[in-house]
């Protein structure tokens, strides 16, 4: 399977995503420069974490207009798989490829820590290697991860199964304390209506090496995509 990881000038986890895909998962992955328009025949695009264009205005607001995003919108339209992680999620929302928006954390502070998220829909290309209700340990690190969308939209998303992950306590239960950024309905990750574009705030690429760093639960998401593309 061929992967493309997009590098914006302020991307930070681009190399980490590439490392996870190539070195840990043995995938064929290449970096895509934001000024390019060709995607090189990849099967899945990863929009990595970071601060794409400095993100001083709103995260992802400027990246959305880069040349490569035009191609990615088309790619998504044709059914291609797109995964936005953290800043990538923010960009996909700004680009209207995913519903909702990501606003400042309730605490107003940047938060870097391990969190636990619960899989809400295991029948999607991003989650098929997991079980519904399974709790995954994956780190977050962001200042603007509070997911918001209009109530009516949220209801529709829930009905269609577009809410993929929620922040929960390690035992899988919902609680105020387990929601690190104040996201509505504790949403940590979503899909579009067609289930080919995904966004999540936690960083699966930082949870691929077990004991060594952040755990290995992120692998399940990448394995899901690999299965899906088969």
């Amino acid at each position: 399977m061929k992967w493309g990881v997009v590098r914006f000038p302020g991307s930070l986890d681009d190399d980490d995503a590439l490392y996870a895909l190539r070195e840990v998962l043995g995938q064929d992955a290449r970096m895509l420069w934001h000024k390019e328009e060709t995607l090189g025949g990849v099967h899945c695009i990863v929009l990595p974490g970071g601060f794409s264009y400095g993100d001083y205005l709103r995260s992802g607001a400027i990246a959305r207009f880069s040349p490569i995003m035009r191609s990615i919108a088309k790619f998504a339209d044709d059914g291609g798989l797109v995964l936005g992680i953290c800043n990538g999620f923010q960009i996909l929302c700004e680009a209207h490829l995913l519903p909702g928006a990501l606003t400042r954390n309730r605490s107003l502070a940047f938060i870097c820590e391990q969190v636990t998220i619960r899989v809400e829909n295991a029948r999607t290309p991003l989650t098929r290697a997991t079980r519904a209700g399974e709790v995954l340990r994956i780190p977050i690190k962001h200042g603007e991860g509070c997911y918001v969308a209009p109530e009516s939209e949220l209801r529709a998303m829930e009905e269609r199964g577009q809410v993929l992950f929620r922040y929960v306590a390690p035992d899988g239960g919902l609680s105020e304390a387990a929601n690190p950024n104040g996201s509505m309905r504790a949403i940590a990750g979503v899909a579009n209506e067609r289930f080919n574009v995904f966004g999540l705030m936690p960083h699966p690429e930082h949870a691929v090496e077990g004991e060594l760093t952040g755990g290995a639960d992120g692998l399940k998401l990448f394995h899901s995509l690999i299965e899906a593309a088969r």
Partner: protein
Amino acid sequence: MSATPASLPGEPAVDQALARAHGLSADEYAAVLARLGRVPTFTELGVFAVMWSEHCSYKSSRKHLRMLPMTGPRVVGGPGENAGALEIGDGWVAVFKIESHNHPSYVEPYQGAATGVGGIIRDIFTMGARPVASMNSLKFGALDHPRTRYLLSGVVGGIGGYGNCVGVPTVAGEVMFDAAYNGNILVNAFCLGLARKGELQSARAHGVGNPVIYVGSATGRDGIHGASLLASAEFDAASAAKRPTVQVGDPFAEKLLIEACLEAMKTGAIVAIQDMGAAGLTSSSSEMAGRGGLGIELDLDRIPLREPGLTPYEILLSESQERMLLVVEKGREAEVAAVFEKWDLHALVVGRITDDGRWRARYRGQVVADIPVKALSSEAPLYDRPAAPPAAPLRAADAPARAPAPREALRALLASPNVGSKRWVFRQYDAIVQSNTLAGPGGDAAVLRIKGSRRGLALTVDSNPRACALDPYLGTVATVCEAARNLACTGARPAGITNCLNYGNPERAEIMWQFRRGVEGLRDAAIAFELPVVSGNVSFYNETAGRAILPTPTIAMVGIFEEIGQRLAIHFRRPGDCIVIIRTAAPSMAASEYAALFGAGDARLAPIDLNRERRLIEGLLKAAERRLLNSAHDVADGGLLVGLLEACFGDHALGAHLDGVDGSPDELFGEGPSTVIISAAADKVDALREIFAPLEVRVIGRVTSQPRLIVGTLFDESINELRLLYDQALPRRLELT
């Protein structure tokens, strides 16, 4: 060819009074006149003032810093470059340095701390090393001082705001609160970068006729006389008037510079490169020319300006952030410029290297400065300032105010912001970007892997100002020992030191004495551990209204793992393991947090036996290598019980049952010379005794699966309850309004 430089119309006449206002003494001004053979122009006066300031010239400290051991088998790169470098094996070189940004952070905490982080990161990548880890050491006033919370949240926000956005993980640090810093906080920022051996960049200009190139943000009026003069004078009401425009950091611009500069270096066309830090364009240009023994000419009309109307004086002295100066091989400008364009940066030719040893600046067809490069780069004044111990000790021992019950003392210590968890601080830092962080904040030292290698690094930053207040020499020795211990507790071999020496006004004999004793302590400890001091920074004038901070030498130390699989963590792992302590001397209350809370501090630090300290380090390393240990932790603030609890606060919710401690306050809460807590299987204890001899290996209890702390008949406490006190120590004080 060079016309005699002249001041511009409207600029003030230069005389001794104006020189004085620029911080130059009468003697220094006389030296300027002698070096030039004429009265300086207004621009030249500004240039001399910044280059001869304490901050840029180290005029009070240089003589003493020469005492430090700066060489060693691993040290690469000559002295005089921007940061020290250490060979760490497998063809890798680590470049690291720590620097202060104290005054700017007190004035505007967010931007001050942010630009401190930005500045130290530039110091590292300017050497051709990719920045891979940051640390910081922070000192604030008492938490109940009205300004402390504002300063704390601003500084921490600024460090995170900048570091998180440039993608350099912040992997360790320290935070302390003490009323001595009410009027002068300390913000010391560290960065480490990695380069392939042989790819280090130089800051030594060569090649007459080579173009000088400017890249990065445009020049504004920020921080004129900022780092240089502000950090070279006491901070009092009068300096409010001198207050420079605050420098604002632009981390995105820095990120572009990191990537573009590292990529441009790969062309091989860059002869020399230096960031524009304190004294901006002036220092970077004169230092690069000075190292190469050449001259340099700048065309100020070509400097990109953020707003119109900047004078040559302002352009040369601006401390605008995120700017770099390069010397490029003639004819290869376009190649270099293309790399910068890729990153949406513009490389502008603003001058050239000359052979006449002069530092010359032109503006609108006129020469506004023409100074021998050496006068700026190497001939700044040098002082041997008088030093004398103070009449009375800085901090006398308090009479024991009261002797709390041990249970009460432990709770008070855990809830103290100096002892309790610093998670509130470090969760605001991205500690994992770059995927190398095997242990981030929260342990004795951070542990980083080096991808594609079995090797790794450990990093720690430590200071012990309360000990330095009792004895500036022993306090510094103790700090170096603590740093080495923190590394050894992870299994890494200490390999090199960088340091930031924060003191008061060096024109006062007792401050100069504190400083000299600190440097002597650093020297002696570094020699004892065979550690080179590869870089450092001195911050004087940390005083307000005649009241100085505690002497605060901050020591950052880097350790090497040959085999990263040998690393240790502080947390107990197996119920049934023996809990063992190893000490170099009896613990004492001197300079302890217990003494700070309850009085009862010894007036004197106990002497430190560096041979025993070294045994301890070597023992830890050997035990780690033979995989005899399941955990290791250095006992620091709060003493033995706090250390034990920290070892219990892992993911596994284990406990400790102690039967081998005497239960005296000194034993339970004393700090003082070194103690480490290790856990090991019972059948390993004999091997440990052999390894650590002549130090005593004392089994004091067992790791239990019950999450309780049981000390003889003294306590039986719930670990989870104590952990809550520890975890909430800072949030409870900060988040209640």
